[in-house]
């Protein structure tokens, strides 16, 4: 009688920009899609984001950014996940990015980038088909 595992997602805004309207709308849409959304608000450092993701045992981190600081914060989040042996947590980005940065971000391991105009339904469909709730507890090697 095993139930389906519930998807847990962290929505966070790294850096100094304080405009979290978009992040809130996406968080709300995730809620309505049946996910458990941990929302930590603005001004998060990559260290705080990764620490939260691990303690909350999320399957995915959604980073919202409008400030242009993604070239620092996105790689930093990925590095910290690796340092903590938590590369299995997927990272996606949403917000405003120069076109030429998108392939670079995907190359370093950001799973998907959602730009202005991305529809909520498309984001949720993407999550449903690409992010699987993780398996049970694992042993340290």
């Amino acid at each position: 009688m095993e139930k389906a595992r519930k998807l847990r997602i962290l929505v966070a805004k790294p850096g100094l920009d304080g405009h979290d309207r978009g992040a809130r709308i996406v968080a709300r849409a995730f809620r309505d899609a049946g996910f458990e959304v941990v929302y930590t608000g603005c001004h998060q450092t990559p260290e705080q984001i990764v620490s939260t993701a691990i303690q909350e045992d999320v399957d995915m981190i959604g980073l919202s950014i409008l400030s242009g600081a993604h070239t620092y914060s996105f790689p930093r989040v990925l590095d910290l996940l690796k340092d903590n042996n938590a590369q299995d947590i997927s990272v996606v980005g949403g917000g405003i990015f120069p076109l030429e940065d998108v392939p670079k971000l995907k190359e370093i391991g950001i799973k998907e980038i959602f730009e202005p105009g991305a529809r909520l339904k498309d984001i949720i469909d993407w999550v449903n088909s690409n992010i699987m709730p993780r398996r049970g507890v694992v042993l340290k090697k």
Partner: protein
Amino acid sequence: MDIIEQIVSGDVRTIARILRDIDDEIPSAKNVLQELYPHTGKAYVVGFTGSPGVGKSALVDQITGAYRKAEKTVGILAVDPTSPFTGGAILGDRIRMQRHFLDPGVFIRSLATRGHFGGLSKSTNDMVNVLDAAGKDVIIVETVGVGQDEVEIVNSAHTTILVTVPGMGDDIQAIKAGIMEIGNIFVVNKADREGSRKTVRELMNLIELDARRHNGEDWEPQIVETVAIKGRGIEDLYEAIEKHRAYLLATHSGKWRKILEKRARIQLMGVLKDQAFRTILERVEGRGDSLDEMVRKIVDKESDPYTIVHRIIDKEFK
């Protein structure tokens, strides 16, 4: 290393993941809980409850700071509501606790109620046991914003703190039974607002009439005024909690033992109910008896829930 050692030694990733297994009701999590149980019983559990928006998360943040100053490690379980329609949830209690995110002495986990009533999630007590076994000195449980009757926290916490704010005076009168009866400590938060003294006076009246004291309990609930976001009154709250802890632990009073027995009894009942239900349901389904067919019979008035359950139980326990 096995999972138990990893948890007892405080490995954050393992702790986080076993909590998820418990929440998702993965059967193997029960075995882990079994093996962890001998390691439990050392932590002190403090519960914060009260209506939505009274400042529970901000107070949890502040009191965590106070315990960290006293060099105690802290585990926090913060519960937010699950949508009854979609099953989704926004878990936002952490927003108030950001300054503790990078402190290895603090572990914060946000939980959704997942359809459980009573102010907590079904998994909360098991999760308290995990954090206890992981060596947290103090475990703080923050309930969902509650109304009148979500009083389950008293069975999880050693000290229960009911948080209110000025200007809810009429409500206080109206909600005397239930939630207002469970506080060992009452906090009037946002005490820099008008009417704080009035709220304190009303609480004092309430405490005077408190039924527990007529039942031979001699703890006089404390009232503390705080302004959580400015850090005011936190030392008073800390002292009140420690005073209650000393009261419970006073040697030869038997109070601590009584609390442990009460919690053990409730946990035993909970596990028994849960396991018995699962076992019976599995057998019913294993026999090929269709639940849908039972539902159809009830709707079509060919049978009723009472008769059907009676038959199931009879079959299982003959």
